[in-house]
C-alpha cells in the first residue's frame, strides 16, 4: 500500500462518516450491554464491600470471566463510538477534533487491554 492510501485510510478512520456501520455498531453494542449490565450490577451489589479474596474468586469463575471479557469489549467499543459523535458535534476546529478522536480511540484500546489483562491474570493465576 502506498503512503498516500495509508493517509487516506487514517483520515477515514478519524474523520470518516461511515454512518451506517457506526449506527449499527452503536446499536448492537447497546443491545449486548443491556443484559450484561443487569448481570454485572446484580453481582457488584452482591460483592459490595467484599474483601479481595471473594472478588477474585468471583472473577476467576470461568463464566464470570467470559462475561466480563464480553462486557469489556462491548463497553469500550460503545463508549468510543458515542464519544466520537459528541466530539464531532461540539468541536469544530479540525485539528482539535481529529486529535480528540485519536485520543479517545487510543484510550479505549489501552483501558480495554488493561481490563482484559487484569481479568485474565485473575482467571488464570487466581
Amino acid at each position, binding site marked *: 500500500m502506498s503512503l498516500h492510501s495509508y493517509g487516506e485510510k487514517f483520515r477515514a478512520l478519524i474523520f470518516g462518516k461511515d454512518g451506517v456501520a457506526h449506527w449499527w455498531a452503536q*446499536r448492537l453494542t*447497546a*443491545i449486548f*450491554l*443491556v443484559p450484561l*449490565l443487569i448481570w454485572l*450490577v446484580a453481582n*457488584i*451489589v*452482591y460483592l*459490595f*464491600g467484599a474483601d*479481595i479474596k471473594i*472478588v*477474585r474468586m468471583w*472473577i476467576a469463575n470461568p463464566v464470570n470471566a467470559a462475561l466480563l471479557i464480553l462486557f469489556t469489549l462491548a*463497553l*469500550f467499543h460503545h*463508549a468510543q463510538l*458515542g*464519544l466520537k459523535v*459528541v466530539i464531532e*458535534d461540539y468541536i*469544530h476546529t479540525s485539528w482539535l477534533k481529529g486529535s480528540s478522536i485519536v485520543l479517545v480511540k487510543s484510550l479505549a484500546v489501552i*483501558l480495554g487491554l*488493561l*481490563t482484559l*489483562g*487484569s*481479568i485474565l*491474570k*485473575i482467571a488464570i493465576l487466581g
Partner: protein
Amino acid sequence: MATRGRPLSPHLQVYKPQFTSVLSIMHRITGVALAVGTLVLVWWLVAAAIGGEAYVSIQKILSNWFGRLLLLGWSFALFYHLCNGIRHLFWDIGKGFDLTSAYRSGWIAMTGAIILTFGVWVCAYLSTGAL
C-alpha cells in the same frame, strides 16, 4: 467551503428547553460521565489483579463520602443511560415517535432510573449487613 462563523448544530443556546430535549441532552451527559467512570472501573479491576496495598487503597477511596457520592452519581447515570437507551432502541425500530408516547416513555425512563438507583443502593447496603 465557507466556514466563517456560521451556526452549527446542535446550538443549545438558541433552543428553548423542554422535558424531551432535557432528557436528550442528559443522555449525552450521562454517556460522557460513564465513559469517565470507566477509569474507576479499570482502576478497581487492575487493583484486584495486583492485590495487596493497591486494592486496599481503591477500597478506601471508594468507601469515603466522596467516593460514595461519585458511585451514587455514576449509578444514576448508568441507569438513566440504560433506560433512555432502551427508549432510543424502540425509536430505532420506529415505535413511540408521537409526542404523547415520547413524553410518556421519557417519564418512564426517568422514574425507572431513580427507582433503580435507590433500589440498588438499598440492596448493596443490605448485602453488607449495614442496614
